[in-house]
């Protein structure tokens, strides 16, 4: 359960990070604003994940936290890629 929660937190945090990047925003037709919620979420959610992982024994907690960063990032990257495709802009790379 802790692994799953950490994975979700990292996935959402990195998704927010991705949504704040100018290149990805252009691909998704998102304006050039700097929304507060994603900026806060990308800072807070990794700490929530760390807090959850800290309930595990050391060094398992660190490995799970770092491992879920990698897998969460891959999932977030996949979601963004699908979203770009869904918005019908595959030819505008």
């Amino acid at each position, binding site marked *: 359960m802790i692994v799953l929660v950490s994975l979700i937190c990292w996935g959402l945090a990195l998704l927010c990070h991705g949504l704040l*990047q100018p290149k990805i925003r252009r691909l998704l037709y998102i304006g050039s604003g700097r929304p507060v919620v994603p900026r806060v979420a990308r800072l807070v959610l990794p700490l929530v994940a760390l807090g959850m992982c800290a309930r595990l024994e050391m*060094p398992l907690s660190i490995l799970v936290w770092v491992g879920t960063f990698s897998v969460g990032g*891959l999932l977030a990257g996949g979601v963004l890629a699908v979203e770009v495709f869904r918005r019908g802009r595959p030819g505008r790379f």
Partner: protein
Amino acid sequence: MRDILRNRMGWLHAWVGFVGGLVLVVAFTGGTLALFDTEITRWMEPELAALPEAAMTGEALDHAGAQVWALREKGQNVFLNLPSARDPVLRILHYDGHAFVGPVLDPRDGTALNSRETRGGQLFFDLHQSLYRGPVWGNLVTEAAGIGLIVAVISGVIIHFRNLVPNLLLFRPFAAPGRAWLDAHLVAGVLLLPFIIMMAYTGAVIHAPRLFPMIGAGHAARPAGRPDAGMRVVGPYAPLAPMLAQAEDIFGRGRIGFVMFGTGTVSFYRADAADFAMTRDHADFSAGDGRLVGVERIGRGMPRLGGAMRGLHFIRWGTPALRWLYFVCSVVGSMMMAAGLGLFLMKHRRVHGGTFRLALAETLALAVTLGLPLASLGYLWGSRLLPPELVHRADRETGVFFLVWLVALLHAGMRCLGGAVRPAWREQACAIAVLGCGLPILDVVSRAETAFRLRADVYLAVDACALGFGLLALWGQRVIVRAR
């Protein structure tokens, strides 16, 4: 100045990455499968599927001990592996030069279970650490490639440094092929950076004594049939069960992994899964009267640090969830390296297209990228198709693996030298799809009496992974067709 550095690092990354990558894809793929070596071994022993879950009894341990002593009196260098959560049977093992193999015993009474002879998942462990070429040349090549990985990672970070954070998730699979492969390589490489650095570093540290033999202790495992000097001892021997109880009092219940038999002594070693630091703590008993004669624990300092490095790398102490995390990261890491090989070839096709050198590079890249997974699936198919009672069965099974890999290499060579690079990739992807998607069917057919008891066990996990990789290959070959 910065661009000159990036250009030079680009050259270094490309060449070290390609030459080292040919070895590293093999080592990484082997390591990925070796994460579940015990589970793969169990999948390859379908006779054990019908065995009910049962705790080891004292009678079984004593019976197994008597068999080990009998074998040692014949001069065989064997030891006893105790049941664990991952492998709930007793095993009398010896090192055959590549893997620990031997008869499987029932944990209830210590009688032999007629399981087929196999190297199981340990083939992948051997492939990972020494490319199946033994502790000298094989290790040397993988260690050199491991250092190459560290060089490639550092140079890659320097090249990509400015875009490391902004482009962390920038993946455009529907862009032009070169762009899409570069994105995949970068996204996977950056997201897996902590994992890859950790594995490369711990792997290099673990094998440092072999890189610097003046401080190394050599290869610990000895093949069976080459007994230690003065190893032959004669009974009677004390029963093992009371010794195990004492050893568990020292190291904790269920924390003993295996039992070694020496000259007049029996040593109970702590399991690798017992602690994060993988040490060889053990309690020694007199073989004649079962008296405790000593306890050896690895203290703090360098030996324990070395154990921690091994623990991080081998992850035998990890929970199933952590092992799956490692597995996913390793699979993606292998794909990232394979994507790097593909990028190198795409870049050089423009200048060197049609030359023998490029065709050779294409052949080798294809043989390690798709040929190795194909051979691994062929190995699993061979395990179920070869007759269980075949003489030298483990060698034949391994032979199937290398034969399939050789056929994949020859196929890649013929097609790439003939200029049909894209069809070559597509055909091997199709072969993976057929073997991967067909493996669950083979499992059900060849394990008919237990196959329909659907539960989350090693059979379901291996079948699901094979099916997943088969479907991925099927999708991959469709992408190759569409990209014409």
